[in-house]
């Protein structure tokens, strides 16, 4: 097919918007960490732009989107971006240069690994995190991306995932849970308060994430068309509903928390991700309302009842939110919006089972894979910083810097 300049322009802009989400996530996470770990938390996200940015063009894109090997992974046909240039692919995004499609997909890979870091901040050793990121990207992300988007077995099964609910959010959320299990809780958790150092940074980060998410979801139409607009509309609607819902939940408990309103927005964005191009705006409202209930109470269960230290609640927000989004897609997908997907509302109840199969496959693979990778790193390099380094804070112990200067203004 000939290149369509409108589609190409939109995909390039979307790719830039998805890249921008990673520094946004860095702020979102960084503001919630304690002051002594602000820089290190920012860095855990930011460094992924470098690491994955290189892996992706070396072999990551090829393993994810190269010609299929048994439905499991791509082959090395696109090694070093060989043959990935100005001409469109015959298979993916056939109206834009493949180099634009490859870069767009690379931005998703970057933010997915960055998302994981939220559960392990304030105690993971930076050098070990780098090794983990390389291994996880190679062994977990690229196969899963292939299963869902690269023509692999989940795509053939007919599981619906518009913009990456399984590949990005369930994958990252479950991996975050596994890595935090290996690492153990932060010193002082849960009896000492872990006070966010800068909630305004969290709000800024959430705003950047929300903005970038339009590139993430509407860009996933891979064209500048009605479907992109539909995804855009649903994305904003679900985030708005979820943000208000979370605000009211915190209000009912005590006061309308700012941290709650922005967390709800992100949970809504997570949940609408797989559904964005398949559902009606009214379904988007329902998806948004429900996700805040699910994530809010998951968070209380995990943090307050079980006292498990997923530091920045990656599993409650992205794991549980992603799982709800996948199921919700099976419920609300309708051919009135997109001929490519129908769910229970169209009478296609079996779609819910297909969605559950995708959730189970990705969650199981991510959980076990992360445990194995993490355990090997723990036995060889050690995952955790020394106690004294944790007490001093990772900014100074890992990076030799501090977020705020001394007495001189």
């Amino acid at each position, binding site marked *: 097919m000939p290149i369509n300049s409108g589609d190409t322009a939109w995909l390039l802009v979307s790719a830039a918007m998805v890249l921008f989400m990673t520094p946004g996530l860095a702020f979102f996470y960084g503001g919630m960490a304690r002051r002594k770990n602000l820089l290190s938390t920012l860095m855990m996200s930011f460094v992924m732009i470098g690491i994955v940015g290189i892996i992706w063009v070396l072999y990551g894109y090829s393993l994810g989107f190269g010609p299929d090997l048994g439905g499991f992974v791509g082959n090395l046909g696109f090694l070093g971006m060989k043959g990935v240039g100005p001409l469109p692919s015959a298979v993916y995004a056939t109206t834009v240069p493949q180099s634009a499609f490859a870069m767009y997909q690379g931005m998703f890979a970057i933010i997915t690994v960055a998302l994981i870091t939220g559960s392990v901040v304030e105690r993971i050793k930076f050098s070990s995190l780098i090794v983990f990121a390389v291994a996880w990207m190679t062994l977990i992300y690229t196969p899963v991306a292939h299963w869902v988007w690269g023509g692999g077995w989940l795509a053939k099964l007919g599981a619906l995932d518009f913009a990456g609910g399984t590949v990005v959010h369930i994958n990252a959320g479950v991996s975050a849970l596994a890595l935090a299990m290996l690492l153990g809780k932060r010193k002082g958790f849960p009896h000492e308060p*872990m006070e966010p150092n800068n909630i305004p940074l969290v709000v800024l980060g959430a705003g950047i994430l929300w903005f970038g998410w339009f590139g993430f979801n509407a860009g996933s139409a891979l064209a500048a068309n009605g479907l992109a607009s539909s995804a855009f509309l649903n994305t904003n609607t679900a985030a708005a509903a979820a943000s208000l819902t979370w605000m009211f*939940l915190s209000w009912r408990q005590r006061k309308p928390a700012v941290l*709650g309103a922005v967390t709800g927005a992100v949970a809504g964005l997570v949940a609408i991700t797989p559904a964005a191009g398949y559902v009606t705006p009214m379904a988007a409202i329902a998806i948004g309302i429900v996700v805040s209930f699910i994530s*809010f109470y998951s968070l209380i269960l995990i943090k307050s009842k079980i006292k498990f230290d997923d530091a920045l609640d990656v599993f409650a927000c992205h794991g549980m939110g992603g799982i709800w989004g996948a199921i919700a897609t099976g419920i609300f997908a309708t051919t009135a919006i997109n001929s490519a997907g129908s769910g229970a509302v169209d009478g296609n109840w079996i779609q819910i089972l297909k969605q559950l199969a995708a959730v189970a496959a990705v969650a199981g693979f991510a959980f076990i894979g992360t445990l194995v990778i993490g355990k090997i790193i723990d036995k060889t390099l050690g995952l955790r910083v020394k106690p004294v380094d944790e007490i001093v804070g990772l900014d100074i112990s890992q990076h030799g810097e501090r977020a705020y200067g001394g007495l001189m203004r």
Partner: protein
Amino acid sequence: MKKVEAIIREEKLEAVKKSLEDIGYMGITVTEVSGRGHQKGLVLQWRAGEYRVDLLPKLKIEVVVVDEDAKKVTASIMTAARTGEMGDGKIFISPVENVIRIRTGEEGIDAV
């Protein structure tokens, strides 16, 4: 000479400054401090659930006075900083051996 150190509520700073100014003490040092006393801490919210912070923000005012003014200064701070609720703070008074003005080298009462 005496040093009067008063731990006060943040919102009482202007009133205390004014009351000290009225009795002739312009020179003060103010520090942001955290502390606890009988007043309970603050309950803050995480994304879901809450946590308690038991050190509250206060301001510390330091002013060095001549001996005979100590009572007057203390009374003036008390009037200005008092609400009658828990958390109004405390005043500490201690002897000062010497005071030296860096610019001129004046010492003792002349430098207060």
